[in-house]
């Protein structure tokens, strides 16, 4: 709504003027607000409920494959998710340990209520940041740019940039069988009015569906009938800052275990008998659900050849008995949920504390966004998180920090920060959303990244901390610590490459059990590390004079050396990738003027206006042949200008 119209309205008042206003204090909103405020901008963060800041309404965990990398990247840029997660963790693991370090992914169970409290306090302590409970119903515009927001209570908050991070709340409804309620997740109020406001501005909307499983009381289940899953020692924290300050995660003895069970034949039967009551199959739910995180009834229907599915039982915190049943989300009616839960091993007498539900919500079609996460349609409006079609806390936070930074950059009149696909998973995530779009809630997966060996959790700081420092989110103190770490890595790598060891019996005794032929002449330590099975730690016996270095240094040294050849190949590919990314397409290019583009490509390009050939090549409907045509057009243009 144009800000000039408010003068006609009753019961409104001027509530304040800010640089940046953030709508929604979920994982995207918290990062966005923190980043903008930390960059010195006067920022306000709105939430529908102050007791639900950074709520974890679904799984009580942070990290996992690809998501763990995201958390470390957010931290590397100067974000807060990692720090909060480290403080609230009740169990830590490194997934994919049996595979290579490129796909090691940290994951931690969270104390859910702690997480919200710790995050809220951190935000309250952030200078320049106001945390405000209010229901935003209008986005105000002025001369075609975002200019502020209006609350349900009539408060007008003026702002130079707005970050919309409304999660799954816009016009949401929850569904349990036949019971449909207009509600946000977790019984929280839904957000009303923003959808129509966006539509009026011409922003295209989509409607998605997601869901969450039941929670049961731990006192009512028998863990003896389940497989136990303990945490691990010596996991690095999510936060690089904490890691460099010598932080150690708690020992396994202080962690809380998870459990797992398989569904039974009875589970399958209960679901089969009640499929007609599933809103997914009866057509009540029209939103698109996530394929990779399907409801349990979906799994049984789609994978009919599988007689059972694995369910993980996760604790929700230290001061609660609530257990989360991962992999058991459903939109079947409550009475059926009861029967389903009781069919699981150890859960014959389980008491349900919260029921499962599916939730439908409005979101922005992310292809209407620029790579900076600013709307291409309404200037000054940024958006991040599930409202952009993603799924997951980490994906939301990863967009949040970028939206917050770029809202700040916009206000400051500076260039936006763009993380590309070779910089980090954050870049892959945003690029996928804004150039390819999505037709289901988008989950980050390592397979979406082309340069997976390079985009590791252990080097996220080396990839992104310099950018975080340049933008102003990384303190001088932390940056000098980081530089020292890089220096140590480089020094130790050089030492291993130039230190040659003799073919002693000691070396042979180490190599032979690993199935490695002992060398006949002198060989460098670096060469030895490249051999299968050989580790930095293991070589200690022949490398007695090595300096005493922290784990976070030696781990990176080891990975860099072990994967040297493969990384070199990836770096060569990155260079080629960047060549296309830097082939800029002029903003005012008239695609009707480019001979040879197919009609579909012409329309898509005119609509999405990609910044570079690289980005154009990833738009669906734009073929490599179309890109060849664009390359030729650019080259011809260049030659013409040269003349």
């Amino acid at each position, binding site marked *: 709504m144009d800000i000039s119209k408010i003068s006609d309205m009753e019961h409104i008042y001027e509530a304040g003027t800010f640089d940046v206003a953030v709508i929604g204090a979920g994982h995207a909103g918290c990062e966005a607000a923190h980043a903008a405020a930390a960059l010195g901008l006067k920022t306000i963060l709105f939430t529908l409920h102050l007791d639900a800041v950074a709520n974890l309404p679904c799984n009580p965990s942070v990290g996992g494959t690809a998501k763990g990398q995201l958390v470390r990247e957010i931290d590397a840029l100067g974000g807060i998710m990692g720090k909060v997660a480290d403080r609230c963790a009740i169990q830590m693991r490194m997934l994919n340990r049996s*595979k290579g370090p*490129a796909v090691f992914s940290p994951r931690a169970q969270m104390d859910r209520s702690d997480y919200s409290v710790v995050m809220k306090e951190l935000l309250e302590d952030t200078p320049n940041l106001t945390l405000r409970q209010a229901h935003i119903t209008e986005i105000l515009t002025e001369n075609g740019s975002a200019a502020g927001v209006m609350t349900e209570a009539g408060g007008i908050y003026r702002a130079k940039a707005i970050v919309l991070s409304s999660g799954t709340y816009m016009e949401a409804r929850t569904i349990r069988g036949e019971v449909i309620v207009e509600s946000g997740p977790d019984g929280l109020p839904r957000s009303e009015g923003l959808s129509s406001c966006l539509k009026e501005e011409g922003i295209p909307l989509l409607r998605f569906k997601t869901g969450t499983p039941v929670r049961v009381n731990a006192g009512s289940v028998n863990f003896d009938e389940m497989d136990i899953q303990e945490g691990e020692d010596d996991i690095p924290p999510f936060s690089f800052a904490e890691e460099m300050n010598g932080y150690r995660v708690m020992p396994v003895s202080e962690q809380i275990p998870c459990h797992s069970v398989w569904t039974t034949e009875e589970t399958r039967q209960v679901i089969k008998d009640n499929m007609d009551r599933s809103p997914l199959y009866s057509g009540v739910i029209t939103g698109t659900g996530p394929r990779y995180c399907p409801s349990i009834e979906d799994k049984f229907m789609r994978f009919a050849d599988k007689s059972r599915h694995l369910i*993980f039982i996760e604790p929700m915190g230290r001061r609660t008995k609530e257990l989360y049943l991962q992999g058991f989300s459903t939109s079947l009616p409550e009475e059926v949920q009861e029967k389903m839960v009781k069919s699981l091993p150890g859960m014959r007498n389980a008491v349900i504390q919260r029921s499962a539900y599916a939730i439908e919500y409005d979101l922005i079609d992310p292809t209407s966004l620029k790579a900076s996460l600013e709307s291409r349609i309404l200037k000054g409006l940024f958006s991040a998180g599930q409202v952009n079609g993603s799924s997951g806390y980490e994906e939301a936070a990863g967009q949040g920090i970028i939206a917050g930074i770029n809202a700040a950059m916009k206000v400051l009149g500076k260039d936006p920060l763009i993380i590309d696909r070779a910089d980090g998973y954050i870049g892959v995530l945003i690029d996928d959303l804004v150039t390819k779009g999505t037709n289901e809630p988008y989950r980050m997966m390592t397979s979406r990244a082309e340069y997976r060996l390079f985009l590791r959790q252990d080097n996220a700081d080396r990839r992104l901390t310099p950018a975080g420092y340049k933008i102003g989110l990384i303190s001088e103190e932390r940056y000098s610590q980081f530089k020292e770490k890089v220096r140590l890595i480089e020094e130790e790598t050089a030492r291993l490459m130039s230190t040659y060891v003799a073919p002693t019996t000691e070396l042979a005794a180490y190599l032979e059990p690993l199935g490695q032929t002992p060398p006949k002449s002198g060989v460098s330590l670096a060469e030895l590390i490249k051999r299968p099975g050989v580790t930095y730690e293991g070589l200690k016996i022949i490398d007695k004079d090595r300096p005493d270095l922290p784990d976070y240094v030696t781990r990176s040294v080891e990975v860099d050396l072990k994967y040297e050849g493969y990384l070199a190949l990836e770096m060569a590919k990155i260079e080629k990738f960047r060549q*296309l990314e830097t082939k800029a397409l002029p903003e005012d290019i008239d695609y009707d003027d480019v001979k040879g583009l197919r009609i579909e490509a012409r329309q898509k390009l005119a609509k999405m206006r990609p910044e570079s050939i690289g980005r154009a*090549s990833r738009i669906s409907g734009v073929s*490599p*042949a179309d890109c060849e045509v664009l390359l*030729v057009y650019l080259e*011809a243009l260049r030659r013409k200008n040269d003349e």
Partner: protein
Amino acid sequence: MFAACSTPAGISGIAVIRVSGNGCIEHLDPYVKTVRAAGGKKTLSELSGYESLYGLITDPVSNEVIDDVMVTVFRAPHSYTGEDMAEISCHGSLAVKQELLRLLFSTGIEPALPGQFSRTAFINGKMTLDGAEAVMDVINADSAKALEAGRRIMSGALAQRIGIAEADLYEAMALIEMIVEFPEHDDTEANEERVISLADKAGEELKKLSDSYGMGRLLSERVRIALVGIPNSGKSTLANALSGQEKSIVTDIPGTTRDAVESNIAVRGIPVTLIDTAGITSTDDVVEKIGVERSKEIFSTADMAFILIPPDMTLEETKERIDMPDSGVYKVLIFSKSDIGANPDEDRITEYGESVGIRKIIHVSGKEFSNIEDMEDAIEEFYNSCGSGSSEGLLITNGRHMALISKAIEYIDMAKKAVQDGMGVETASSVLRAALDELGQITGKTVSSDLADTIFGRFCIGK
């Protein structure tokens, strides 16, 4: 607007002259007097795409009829080049073609540059680069086998075959993703053995293709055959007999061919470059000496060599004059001028030849063209001995394709090794992706910024 005669030079029943350029149909209109046209239409301009008319091409100045022709029009973008086009079918005499083109050029239409039709088609998005590349290969093909190979690639057969390997690689990568992405679910059927076996399958498929390059290369680069022997051993006579042209001067004076003379011929569909070398002799003549050195060099770098031994050459002379390298050159020993008489030393020379790897022995008389077939057999045998033979009729003829396929094979091996070395399947996945990138440059799935350079190099656009 540009035009060219698209049928071969020389006299034929009819010939086709193609004109391309937006507005070219209207441009031609004044020069074509309609006799009868599709749908009773009156002029060329009225015709829709794919319609023809029968008419008279007339010189507007002299008002003279040049020829009666059929003109088919194509409207942009539905034409070969993507522009408006006209195809004029005229009579195939040299005079008619010349007159017609002269008329067209006098109206402001430009003569087409080599490959300009394909280049325009490419720029207008009617053809991908590999398609254009294949068209160029077809245009340049000057033997039946090379043409066939080019046509197969143009028809997408290569992309199709590479697609088979790509599918296996994609499947291997999908398995890897299951292993990596869902570490908590170990009930998948995805495992390293299956990844390796799929990578193997893809590698073998590509190997078959790369093996065909032995033959394919000969089609694009031609089989280079050196004719080697002492002066006056009959090399030139033989060369002339094989090529049917009097390119070398045949005289009875030894040392007539001082410099190497090359002629391109096709033998049983195989493109061949015959190199008629200067006779190898121990001479003091400076010019001749250079020729001799050059002959030796050609001998050692050719694909094949015909070594000629005249009837009066002894074993000692053979050893002294012809330094036969025991190398990969496919050597054929020819006892020449058998019409004059048999060589008394034949058995001993044969024995010597076998010791340096002679593959075949032929008796031939140049003057009477006797046993030319034996030589043709020898060429065909050599060709068939190169590579594993054609891969279901598909040959890699293009060096760029070969380099990309070889690189892809190398990456597949590297990926397998990564798994075997315990580097993790995700490492293998990274390398397999690199292999797919290479293949994508053949099939047109990978966009590369080098491409503009390639295109500009090949087509010199924008000049």
